[in-house]
C-alpha cells in the first residue's frame, strides 16, 4: 500500500518539522518503530480533529484500516455512552495547550464496544502554535470488566465494606455500610474511621494502626472475624463481627474491613442462653420436686397409713363392719398413692439418675431379665426365645428395665394360651431395630399413642394390675438413648413392640 507509506512519511515528517529537531535519524527511526509496533493505538489529528495518521494497533483494536479513517473525525469511534460533557472538557483542555487523560467508551467497526484509556496531547509547531493532536490509547476493556465485577461485589454484599488508608482515613464506604451505619458515603469518605467506633474502641484502634505501621504486626489481621461494637450516625452502638485485611502496593497501604451486623445473632444467642438457664432452672426444680416426692410427700402419707393401721389394730374389735371397711379403703387409697409416687419417681429417675453409656451385651441383659421374671414366667408357663442379640452402647440398668417391662408386659397381657415371647434384633443402616413379639391379647391401633402416656391404662385393675407407668418409662429410656419405640398389633393376635438404638462405634 504505497499510499499508506506516503502518509506515514508525511506524518513523521510533520512531527519532525514541528519540533523534534533535536532528534537524529536513529532516534527517529526508533520512535517510528515504537509507534508502528507498539501495542498502544496512536492517532494524530490536525487542529480541527481530522485524522491524519493511525498506527497498526489502532486498526487492530478498532477494525478500521488507516484508509477508512484518514480525514475523518475520531468521533466515528463514539459509542454514544461517553458523556458529551467529557468531550467538551477534553477539547477545552487540549485547545488550551494542556494534556488530557481519561477513559473512553468506544465502538469498533463491527459494532463491538470497548474501553480505552487515552492520553491526548497538543503538538506545537516551531512557532509555538498548536498544529496537531496526538492521542495514545490503551485498551482497558478487560480491566474495566474486573472493575465492574469488583464493584458489583462491593455494591451488592450485605456486609459493610470499608477501606481506610494508613492514617485511618476512609477511602471506600459501600452501600451496605451506608445502610448499617446510616451515614451517606459523602459524610464518611475522607474522614477518620474512628467516627464509626464507640469511644472505648478508638484508642485501641489508634494503637493498633501505629503498631502495624511501625512493626508490620497487627493483632486483628488474619485472625478471622472478631466481635466488636460499632457506632451509628444516630449514636446507637451495635454488635459487629469484623474481619480485617490489608493490601499493599509499594508505598501504598490500605486496610479493608468487612463488617457484619450481628445484632440478630447476639439476640438469638442471648435468647438461647436465657432458655438454657431457664431449662436448667426448671430441671433443678424438677430434681427438687423428685426429692420432695421421695421424702416430704411420703411422710404425711406414711402418717395416714400408719395411723389408720394402728387404729385398725387397736380398735378393730370395738368398731363395726362399716368402720372397718372405711379403714380398709383409707389404707388402700394411701397405698395406691404411695405406688403412684414411687412410679413417678422411677419415671423421673430415667433422666436424673441415668448412667453413662457403655458397651452392653443384650444377650446378657436378656438372661438377667429372664431370671428377674422367673416367677411370672413359671406361673404362666411362658416360653421366651430370642435371636442373636448385639452389643450396644447403653445404660445397662436402663436397658435391663426396658426389656423387663416389655417382656413383663408380654407375659402379663396374655390370652388363653401360654405366652410365647420372641426377642430379635436387626441392623438397619445406622440403627438396631429390636422387637419383642408376643401372642397375647394385643392392642387396638387407636390406643397406640395412649399406652406410652404416664398412668394411661387400657384395662381395669381387677383384670390386669399396675399403675400404667411401665411403657412410659420404656419410652423415656429409649428416647434417652436417641431411639424410638413403636408397636404393631392386632387385638386378639398378639403385639410386637419395636425400639431402635443407634449403632455406635
Amino acid at each position, binding site marked *: 500500500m504505497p499510499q499508506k507509506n506516503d502518509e506515514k512519511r508525511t506524518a513523521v515528517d510533520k512531527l519532525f518539522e514541528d519540533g523534534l529537531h533535536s532528534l537524529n535519524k536513529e532516534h527517529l527511526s526508533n520512535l517510528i518503530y515504537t509507534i508502528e509496533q507498539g501495542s498502544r493505538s496512536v492517532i494524530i489529528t490536525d487542529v480541527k480533529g481530522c485524522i491524519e495518521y493511525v498506527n497498526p494497533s489502532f486498526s487492530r483494536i478498532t477494525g478500521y484500516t488507516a484508509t477508512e479513517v484518514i480525514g475523518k473525525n475520531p468521533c466515528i469511534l463514539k459509542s454514544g455512552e461517553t458523556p458529551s460533557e467529557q468531550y467538551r472538557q477534553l477539547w477545552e483542555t487540549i485547545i488550551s495547550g494542556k494534556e488530557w487523560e481519561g477513559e473512553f467508551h468506544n465502538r469498533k467497526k463491527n459494532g463491538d464496544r470497548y474501553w480505552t484509556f487515552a492520553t491526548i496531547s497538543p503538538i506545537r509547531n516551531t512557532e509555538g502554535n498548536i498544529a496537531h493532536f496526538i492521542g495514545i490509547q490503551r485498551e482497558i476493556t478487560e480491566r474495566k470488566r474486573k472493575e465492574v465485577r469488583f464493584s458489583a461485589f462491593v455494591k451488592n454484599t450485605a456486609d459493610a465494606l470499608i477501606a481506610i488508608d494508613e492514617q485511618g482515613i476512609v477511602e471506600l464506604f459501600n452501600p451496605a455500610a451506608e445502610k448499617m451505619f446510616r451515614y451517606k458515603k459523602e459524610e464518611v469518605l475522607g474522614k477518620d474511621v474512628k467516627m464509626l467506633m464507640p469511644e472505648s474502641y478508638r484508642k485501641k484502634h489508634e494503637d493498633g494502626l501505629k503498631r502495624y505501621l511501625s512493626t508490620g504486626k497487627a493483632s486483628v489481621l488474619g485472625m478471622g472475624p472478631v466481635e466488636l461494637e460499632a457506632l451509628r450516625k444516630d449514636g446507637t452502638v451495635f454488635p459487629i463481627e469484623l474481619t480485617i485485611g490489608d493490601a499493599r502496593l509499594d508505598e501504598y497501604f490500605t486496610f479493608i474491613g468487612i463488617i457484619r451486623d450481628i445484632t440478630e445473632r447476639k439476640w438469638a444467642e442471648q435468647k438461647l442462653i436465657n432458655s438454657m438457664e431457664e431449662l436448667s432452672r426448671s430441671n433443678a426444680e424438677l430434681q427438687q420436686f423428685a*426429692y420432695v416426692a*421421695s*421424702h416430704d410427700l*411420703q*411422710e404425711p*402419707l*406414711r*402418717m395416714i*397409713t*400408719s*395411723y389408720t*393401721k*394402728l387404729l385398725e*389394730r387397736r380398735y378393730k374389735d370395738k368398731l363395726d363392719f362399716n368402720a372397718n371397711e372405711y379403714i380398709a379403703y383409707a389404707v388402700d387409697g*394411701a*397405698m395406691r398413692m*404411695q405406688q403412684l409416687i414411687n412410679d413417678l419417681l422411677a419415671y423421673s429417675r430415667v433422666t436424673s*439418675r441415668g448412667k453413662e453409656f457403655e458397651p452392653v451385651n443384650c444377650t446378657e441383659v436378656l438372661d438377667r431379665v429372664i431370671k428377674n421374671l422367673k416367677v411370672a414366667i413359671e406361673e404362666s408357663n411362658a416360653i421366651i426365645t430370642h435371636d442373636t442379640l448385639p452389643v450396644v452402647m447403653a445404660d445397662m440398668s436402663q436397658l435391663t428395665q426396658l426389656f423387663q417391662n416389655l417382656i413383663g408386659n408380654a407375659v402379663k397381657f396374655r390370652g388363653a394360651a401360654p405366652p410365647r415371647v420372641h426377642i430379635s434384633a436387626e441392623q438397619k443402616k445406622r440403627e438396631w431395630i429390636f422387637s419383642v413379639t408376643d401372642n397375647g391379647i394385643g392392642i387396638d391401633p387407636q390406643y397406640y399413642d395412649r399406652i406410652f402416656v404416664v398412668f394411661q391404662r387400657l384395662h381395669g385393675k381387677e383384670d390386669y394390675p399396675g399403675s400404667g407407668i411401665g411403657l412410659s418409662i420404656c419410652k423415656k429410656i429409649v428416647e434417652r438413648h436417641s431411639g424410638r419405640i413403636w408397636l404393631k398389633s392386632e387385638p386378639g393376635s398378639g403385639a410386637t413392640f419395636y425400639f431402635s438404638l443407634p449403632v455406635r462405634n
Partner: protein
Amino acid sequence: MHTTTNARPVEILLVEDNPGDVRLTEEALKESKLYNNLTVVADGVEAMSCLRKEGKYADVPRPDIILLDLNLPKKDGREVLAEIKNDEKLKFIPIVILTTSSNEEDILKSYGLHANCYVTKPVDFDEFIKIVQAVHNFWFSIVKLPSESE
C-alpha cells in the same frame, strides 16, 4: 424377747422431729414388748447435748442405740452422724438411720459417714413393728457390742 443378761432396760435415743413418728416408734416399741427406756429429742443440737450430758440431760444415761432421722431442724441428721462418729467417746454407739428417704445419695452418704445401718421407714405399720423388732434382735441378741465400761 429381751435377752441381755442384766435386767436393765435398753437405752434408746430417738432423734426425730415429727411427733407422729415419735408416737409410732413408741407404739411399735410397746407392741414389740421390748424392755426399753426411750429418750426423744427433736433436733440435732438437742441430740448432741443429750449425748454429751449437757444441762438438763446430765442424768440421761448413755444410749445403747441411736435411732436417727436425717432431715432435722437446726442440725441435720448427717451432721449429727458425722459428729458422733468423730467423737472418740460416742463413736461406739450403733446408729440406725431411720428415715423416709429412699434416696440413693442419702443412703451412700450415711454409710460413708459410718452409719451402722440404714432403714427406710415403711408405709405399713405392721412392717414398722417388724423392723423395730428386727433392729432390736440384731443389735442386742446377735451382735456383740463392747461393754459399757470402756
